[in-house]
């Protein structure tokens, strides 16, 4: 999973003339817009998938986020970096999904089968032809446990934790994305790690 953080860092540091692409896309250049999407969309989908643990919702977030970017790019004034702006859009949409889910008390993606906790999203890997069965089983079990632990977090704690731990973003940037201070994001991360550790203690 360290790879994920490296991917984000690599994207952020890529020698892509991002400002040029944004300006071109603002003038209606579709190719420039597509290049911008491709620079970030894997990270966007991964964040949505990891936060929501639902492929359908992750697809919705992907589409909603990039359509929002497309519709509002003309108003982007370079006040912050593009990735901060994009991730703010993505995390806000994910947070809305998580909160709506909490209100509706939707069915969890993590289920207790009686033989252990299973994350239904992790079952997606089952179809991969290259996978080793034992490794698959371990991954499923671990993903189930981690998924269960993540569900014990509040939507905000979960978002901060995912962005810090799995995406490797700094707390200052995360605070900016979710509209809070670095200090508040720090408190959130602290609470999240405490809860996660308590849930996963038996595995450590």
């Amino acid at each position: 999973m360290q790879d994920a953080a490296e991917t984000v860092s690599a994207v952020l540091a890529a020698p892509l003339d991002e400002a040029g692409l944004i300006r071109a896309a603002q003038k209606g250049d579709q190719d420039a817009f597509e290049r911008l999407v491709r620079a970030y969309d894997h990270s966007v989908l991964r964040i949505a998938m990891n936060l929501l643990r639902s492929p359908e919702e992750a697809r919705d977030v992907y589409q909603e986020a990039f359509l929002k970017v497309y519709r509002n790019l003309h108003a982007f004034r370079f006040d912050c970096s593009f990735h901060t702006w994009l991730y703010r859009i993505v995390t806000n949409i994910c947070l809305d999904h998580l909160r709506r889910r909490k209100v509706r008390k939707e069915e969890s993606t993590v289920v207790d089968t009686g033989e252990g906790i299973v994350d239904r999203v992790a079952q997606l890997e089952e179809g991969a032809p290259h996978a080793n069965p034992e490794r698959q089983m371990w991954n499923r079990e671990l993903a189930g446990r981690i998924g269960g632990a993540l569900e014990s977090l509040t939507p905000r704690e979960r978002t901060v934790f995912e962005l810090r731990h799995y995406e490797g973003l700094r707390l200052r940037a995360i605070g900016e994305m979710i509209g809070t201070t670095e200090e508040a994001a720090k408190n959130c991360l602290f609470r999240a790690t405490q809860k996660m550790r308590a849930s996963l203690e038996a595995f450590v």
Partner: protein
Amino acid sequence: MNCAETIRQIPLYCYGEVSSEVEERIESHLAECAVCSAELTHHRAFLDLLNKREDVTEASMLASCRSELRTAISSQSVPAGQSWLDRKWMDGLRSFSGLHIRFRIPVGAMALVGLGFFAARYTPERFGGMRSGLAEPMFSSVRSVEDQSGKVHIAVDEVRRHVVTGSLQDPRIQELLVTAVREESNPGVRVESIGMLRNSTDSEEVRNALLDALNHDPNPGVRLKAIEGLKSWAGNVAVRRTLANVLLKDDNPGVRVQAIDLLTTHHDDSIVGVLQDVVQKEDNNYIRTRSIKLLEEMKASVGTY
């Protein structure tokens, strides 16, 4: 640094999220304390365990998301550079084609009458049209000049003023008011526009304009007006997020007082962190006292970690 403090800092230390001074203090404590060193090893094992979770997004999923996005964008039919105001007009035109034929005929007839009226107003005088003083350019700039075999072509950008009249319920009027909320040069126009939009906040575009004003407008009068306009939306997530941001960052105590008053009409856990931060940093006694009282009412800790 003692053991309790070190153990509390270990998660942030492992993420490199402590200051260099705290880092040095942690490290000098760890060098002398076997219990805390064991705790650090244990915490690192926990982080390693988390890192074993695999990425569940597949290339095929990404490819299908890209394809769906391309389809959705091509169905938008207007380029990204075009303003949403223009797009709304396009949407309006498109939705007209969805009207039942019974309504289309009279609406179409009225549109033709209107078109004739405006065509007459804007047709140059030499074609017998009515010259409108309102259509005189307010501002113009020459973009290019070109001599093509004795015929001079001059490209001129012009800004013209015209008056649009309608009720507050008229979507076009609302859209223009939303644009006016973002009118940079005149705070008076922004305050008036927000005042007129306060009963139209059911529209997401209107709410977003008010949130934008609350977050970014340099004029505190405009920001106060925006809070007033958002009063009935105090439970909305985006509104609460903006209010929290204002409470922590706005430099005007009057705006912060209004923000905390509105934010605390609804109690939910999401504001606990913000209130704790306010208690730590706020200079204004009223706001600090109010935050402490609310945290106590919510049975939350007044201090932060």
